[in-house]
């Protein structure tokens, strides 16, 4: 019952990141003029966390009285979120333009949100998952409104907060009903009562409400309405973090609660999830067409991708789970990379966010244009980019479960999405540049963009690198 050293070792990544964040709080108080250092401290902290996560990778174990998983897929998610954090911080030079004094707080909040994500990705108890989710969400509410001089940021923050708190209510209600019918909140203990518990309607309803809570976070239709507004109003780097890490962690929690211990075997649940998937794919792709603001457009794109990811859950086989993990990595990296480009083109908060502003980017900054088109093609799913392999994986899992119709819808809607992804490329490559504004990229941001691009290419050409890792988590 009393935590042992092993327990602390098991959650070393989480401990490291949170202590680095706390350290930054102290530094901030002690040394007033030290803002330059924060990003380096954060990055080194995240790197150490990655080291520990790799160290723990070998075996899956439980720690802190079955509150957390560690090793295995938990380490996998920890590494993913740390990478997301590093990429975000590398790209976040523009934060200095927003509010010079709050650099430290920005770093601290990003680190805290990553702690939240890591806990969501490794929680073995609904309480820990809930607390991780709340930690992440609260950091996001704040980060969304970080550019507090601007009404749009305030608005985004308020909308996100009100709707998020509202969705939390449903999530908690779901946990309450599950607790009521099983007498426990521990995922493994709940799984042990399977399949008897699914005969109790209240239990299924509990799962449904839990699903709705997560559906809000991963932005499934019809719980997606906040996404475009919040994405548009928040600072671009924060948006990138929300769209990648926020979504990936919610999907991780989704997997943990629905798939890993239980296997979504309840037909009614699967049916509902498949409806959500179809609606999400349609709405995300169709609504994306009408967007002129690139952040809104990418917001709808992220909604649509949540739909594709859900296909893996609907097919409810190990292939689908592997596909989700694989695609989450690719999607996160691609999205954060795309938002990174957006943040560099946007010279100050809220400027240059229309698609027209990308005219002739290939001339004024070929590097950014190339990276952006790589991201777009990966999101479309053009082989041999990573996005294609991921989509292929997910759709193959659906085919394995005899769900050809959902594959057909998935591919059809992805054709629709072509229109808006291509629009950006058309503007970048086939239009004359409007104004001559030179974008100067710092070394950090270049590193981040190059790293993401290489990953997108590498995982497309040689996906086994990641697939072999992902496959270990699920036995066929």
């Amino acid at each position, binding site marked *: 019952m009393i935590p042992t050293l092993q327990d602390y070792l098991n959650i070393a990544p989480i401990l490291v990141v949170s202590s680095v964040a706390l350290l930054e709080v102290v530094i901030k108080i002690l040394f007033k003029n030290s803002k330059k250092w924060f990003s380096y401290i954060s990055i080194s902290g995240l790197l150490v966390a990655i080291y520990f996560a790799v160290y723990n990778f070998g075996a899956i174990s439980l720690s802190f009285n079955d509150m957390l998983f560690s090793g295995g897929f938990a380490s996998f998610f920890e590494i993913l979120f740390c990478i997301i954090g590093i990429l975000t911080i590398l790209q976040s030079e523009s934060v200095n333009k927003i509010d010079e004094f709050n650099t430290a707080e920005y770093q601290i909040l990003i680190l805290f949100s990553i702690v939240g994500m890591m806990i969501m990705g490794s929680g073995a108890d609904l309480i820990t998952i809930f607390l991780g989710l709340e930690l992440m969400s609260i950091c996001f509410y704040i980060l969304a409104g970080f550019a507090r001089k601007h009404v749009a940021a305030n608005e985004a923050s308020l909308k996100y907060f009100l709707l998020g708190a509202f969705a939390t209510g449903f999530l908690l209600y779901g946990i309450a009903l599950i607790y009521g019918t099983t007498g426990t909140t521990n995922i493994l203990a709940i799984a042990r009562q399977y399949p008897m518990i699914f005969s109790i*309607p209240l239990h299924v309803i509990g799962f449904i409400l839990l699903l709705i809570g997560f559906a809000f976070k991963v932005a499934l239709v019809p719980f997606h309405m906040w996404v475009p507004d919040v994405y548009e109003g928040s600072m671009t780097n924060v948006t990138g973090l929300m769209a990648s890490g926020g979504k990936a962690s919610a999907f991780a929690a989704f997997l943990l609660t629905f798939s890993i211990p239980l296997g979504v075997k309840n037909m*009614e649940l699967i049916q509902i999830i498949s409806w959500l998937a179809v609606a999400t794919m349609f*709405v995300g792709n*169709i609504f994306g067409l009408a967007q002129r603001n690139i952040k809104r457009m990418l917001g709808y794109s992220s909604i649509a991708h949540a739909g594709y990811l859900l296909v893996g859950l609907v097919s409810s086989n190990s*292939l689908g789970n592997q596909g989700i993990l694989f695609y989450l990595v690719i999607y996160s990296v691609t999205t954060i990379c795309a938002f990174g480009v957006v943040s560099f083109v946007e010279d100050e908060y809220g400027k240059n966010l229309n698609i027209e502003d990308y005219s002739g980017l290939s001339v004024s900054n070929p590097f950014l244009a190339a990276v952006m088109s790589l991201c777009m093609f990966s999101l479309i799913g053009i*082989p041999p980019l990573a996005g294609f392999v991921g989509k292929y994986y997910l759709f193959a899992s659906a085919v394995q479960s005899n769900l050809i119709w959902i594959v057909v819808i998935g591919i059809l809607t992805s*054709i629709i999405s072509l*229109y808006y992804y291509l629009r950006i490329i058309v503007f970048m490559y086939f239009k004359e540049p409007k104004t001559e504004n030179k974008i100067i990229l710092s070394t950090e941001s270049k590193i981040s963009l190059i790293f993401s691009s290489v990953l997108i290419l590498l995982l497309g050409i040689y996906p086994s690198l990641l697939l072999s890792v992902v496959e270990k988590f699920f036995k066929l």
Partner: protein
Amino acid sequence: MVSMYQFIGLIPLFPLIGFLINGLLGSKIKSEKIIGSISVLAVSLSFLVSTFIFFEMINLPTEERLKIVTLFSWINVGSINVDISYQIDQLSILMTLIITGVGSLIHIYATGYMHGDSGYWRFFAYLNLFIFTMLNLVLADNFLLMFLGWEGVGLCSYLLIGFWYDRDFENSTTSVAAKKAFIVNRIGDFGFLIAMFLIVQEFGSLQFLSVFSQASVIPSGDKILTAITLLLFLGATGKSAQIPLFVWLPDAMAGPTPVSALIHAATMVTAGVYLLARSSTMFILAPITMDVVAVIGICTAVFAGTIALVQNDIKKILAYSTLSQLGFMFLACGVGAFSVGVFHLMTHAFFKALLFLGAGAIIHSLHHEQNIQKMGGLKKYLPKTAATFFIAAFAISGIPPLSGFFSKDEILWKAFSSGSIWLWLFGIIGACLTAFYIFRLVTLVFNGEERFDEDLHPKEVPSAMTIPLIILAVLSAIGGLIGIPHFLGGSNKFEEFLEPIFKRANYQLPIAHDEIFMEYLLMSISVALAVGGILFARHLYLKDNSIAEKISKKYNYGYKLLFNKYFVDEFYDKVVVNPIKNFSDSVLWKKLDVKIIDEFINASGRITEYLSSLFVKIQTGVTDTYVLIFVMGVVLILLRMII
């Protein structure tokens, strides 16, 4: 002895290296010469390697010719292993030869054509990438790798068609044309993807050999197989521009002419035919699909041929001509004569590349004038171009013994012997149309009076452009000789060479009787019709006033006769030509093509966008609405649980 087979990886590798060098460093390399030579070298080295492999192959016994070389494992999805591995057999090596051979000629030509363009390096990077993806398409040993190439050529064509983004193209911009090409292609790819998933489900593999050996034992007419083949054919119609997904091809003319040549002749559009030929085992077991293929093929052949009659843009005529010729290839596949389809693919690659490059030379020398009504009399300014162009025109019209004759005649014969007189009849009409429109073009461009601006002084293009023309002309002339059918005393080496590939498919076909008399008869009819078409076109469009005047001066007494003769012409014009032209112009082209099919594709995009802008109003920005929709979702889901 070291087998050349193991060097197969080099074939796609060279263009990839060329692409990487030009793509990454191109903007730094200032010299056009270096960029051009890297690019040309990359493709010609591939050609060299494939030639070696080809010669090694023909020295091997037939059963040892097929080999699979695995480079590395790509995707491991459960039980399905997809490798990056190349299948070398007669069909793929043939396609490789065509692609790299014709491709390198086009590359050489492009070094001259693109001279001075600001995007020189970009262009050659794209061209190399195009070749690379196309080679992956034909060399792949599984559907997924093939799909990689399949998507890749779509992507490259998108980049190349939109290459001159600062130029207008038919009331819109090239980027619109490029986007359309990409999207239409994706619709076809949709079919391919679904078919691929069905194949995985049905056969548990994507590897050609495994899939086809499993498929060959399925009884003919199986439902799944029909679905798979129909979907694959949908993919093929997208890439090979058949009805109804052909709309992108005429628009693809927005790109630089070497691109048109590359897309139309050697690479992209042949992908569909290649796919059918590759999957012949499955197609032959789905009679319904075969009928669909044949009918779509012949319809496209006639339809596009008719539209080509009235076009005035030189590249558009050639574009519709490509559609029409592709239709013939699909007709061949549809009646089960896959090797003939591939044969026509090859000869077509020669003469269509030649036609396009020739057209490019003309356009180049006239400073981007593309309207054939503003040309004329170019023969004396561009002698080499004219000579080669004439050879190509005769070849495409099917005049013996040029290459087009053998392949087209073979197709028509197979169509006839498959038992459908209608297919043959329409095929003959299509062939006749081909002869007519191509000679209308030739005559208006090279003969007659000079209708171009006087301050244009056309002169022969540089040798970088003429040499490829001459090589292609030689190929167009003699390329057909390897496929002389048996009844003409030939040995039909071509069919023999490809025989192992289509063994399974041929096994299913009824054995055609050798009706030598019939073959001769039909051949004579088609040749006669082609010649008739040519003469008619020459006659109609060679109303050279100077000649007429000369004649009337010399033979005063014949004036009346001549007048009468012209009267006959008028009569022809009124009764025969004009109705067809009007029909083609106002109905087929302006209504069916531009208005209906083209509009449909455009409209579906526009409608979705309109709907999108309509739906998006639900995003009112007011949190109330969002919560309301949220709760509605909850209530609906709970309702589903209760009921």
